[in-house]
């Protein structure tokens, strides 16, 4: 479903960010991407989200290939791929419900469908009572839940999470991770970038892809060469 084949990414100023990266994330799979800061975790998520193309190699996501990707097809892909970040990226002048409604409005959802869908998602992330709160009135954990709800709004096949617990205290972080597991349990694949090795060790049943200086140095499921794109 997500497949990186011999991917290189080079930036003009900082040089090679990814070197010959290959892996295959299957439908419904959960994988951590670990490694120190600057090892290329975020770059992989950006490539999967088609925020930028690889310098070499191929990124395939849910039937779309970076080699044949046209600019006008990117929005279609992004409705299949949810993403959350460490800094939440919520609109501060809109309430939790309005942040979700905005994501539906701008992708052309009918007005009559928006309210019900927003309420369902807020309930799913445990924030039904906070729908009228602005981001600044919510805790970090609650803000990340709103961001998660927004990422799930188009029922994506995969959720990309870039250090989603990075800004949270331990309790809130656990809550967010549990929510991520629930999302995964309902069939959505998860690709989570984290440098929290304790978390990775605790959930050793999940796949781990470890990066160092842009190259994969360890993959608990060696699937780089496997087929079976879905």
């Amino acid at each position, binding site marked *: 479903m997500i497949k990186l084949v011999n991917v290189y990414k080079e930036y003009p100023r900082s040089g090679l960010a990814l070197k010959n990266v290959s892996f295959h994330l299957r439908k419904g799979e959960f994988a951590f991407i670990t490694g120190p800061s600057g090892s290329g975790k975020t770059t992989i998520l950006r490539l999967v989200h088609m925020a930028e193309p690889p310098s070499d190699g191929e990124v395939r996501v849910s039937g779309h290939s970076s080699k044949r990707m046209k600019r006008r097809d990117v929005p279609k*892909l992004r409705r299949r791929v949810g993403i959350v970040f460490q800094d939440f*990226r919520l609109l501060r002048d809109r309430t939790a419900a309005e942040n979700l409604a905005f*994501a539906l409005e701008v992708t*052309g959802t009918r007005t009559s469908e928006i309210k019900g869908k927003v309420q369902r998602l807020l309930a799913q992330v445990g924030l039904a009572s906070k729908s009228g709160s602005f981001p600044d009135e919510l805790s970090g954990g609650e803000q990340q839940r709103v961001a998660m709800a*927004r990422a799930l709004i188009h029922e994506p096949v995969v959720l990309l999470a870039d250090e989603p617990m990075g800004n949270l205290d331990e309790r809130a972080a656990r809550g967010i991770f549990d929510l991520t597991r629930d999302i995964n349990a309902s069939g959505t694949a998860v690709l989570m970038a984290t440098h929290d090795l304790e978390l990775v060790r605790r959930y050793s049943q999940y796949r781990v892809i470890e990066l160092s200086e842009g190259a994969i140095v360890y993959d608990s499921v060696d699937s780089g060469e496997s087929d079976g794109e879905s």
Partner: protein
Amino acid sequence: MANHSLREAVVAYRRAPGLGLLSATSIGLSLFVLGTFGIVTYNVDVTLRAIERRVEVVAYLRDDITAAQLEVLQSDVRSYPEVEGVVHVSKFEAMRNAMQQLNEFRDVFTDLEMNPLPASIEVRLKPDFRNPQSVEHVAQLIDLYPFVEDVRYGREWVNKIYQLRRLGGAIAAILGVAFAVVAILIIGTTVRMAVLARREEIAVMRLVGATDGFIRRPFLLEGFFTGLAGGFLALLLTYAAYQVVDGSLIDLEWLPTIWAAAGTLAGGLIGLFASAYALRRHLMTYA
């Protein structure tokens, strides 16, 4: 989707009314300069056309021309494609006109034993043929008739009027383009500021899969309405300036409705174009 774009454009004005107002005023002032020049150009054109209507070819006839020859001449000249009408002025009418127009020489004319003034035909050209080439061509054709003594048509006048009109048209075009560019730069800057002010929203739109067209539309509408508002303001200012000048300094004619409407709409179109250009350059930054 269209509702969303319209609502977002209105919200943008509400969030930064000063910016929209400043932008519309700047465009209004640019287009006002253009409107003022439009009035000048239009009135110069009206005046020149009035003068042009008086452009005619006069063929003086020999005294021994027969009635049949005169008939042939008039009929031939009328059939030229350039010719609108032909008027015969007899020797007697020429004398009467001269006495009316040159009243101080009335006694001189009265004392003459014979009428020295020749008969003539005055040939008026159709509007599209009142240019130096056509006038000269018709004059040359008439001059070929043996019973035509001389042909006059104010060669220098015709040339000057023609050059003046061309000069007026060229200045209008240059000023038009210059002020359109100014308006485009102003609206472009406004839209760029709006894009910067809403960069977080745009980033979120991209994250959740909004299309480029959907992201652009509110900005395009904003640019169009800003330009249109500027166009209306320019129209009001131009009309005010016209009211002040007309009658007190010189008599002026107001712009034809189609000019005024086209000028106002041009404001909107300039806004739309400027927005599209600014977006093309700056929206890509927030991928």
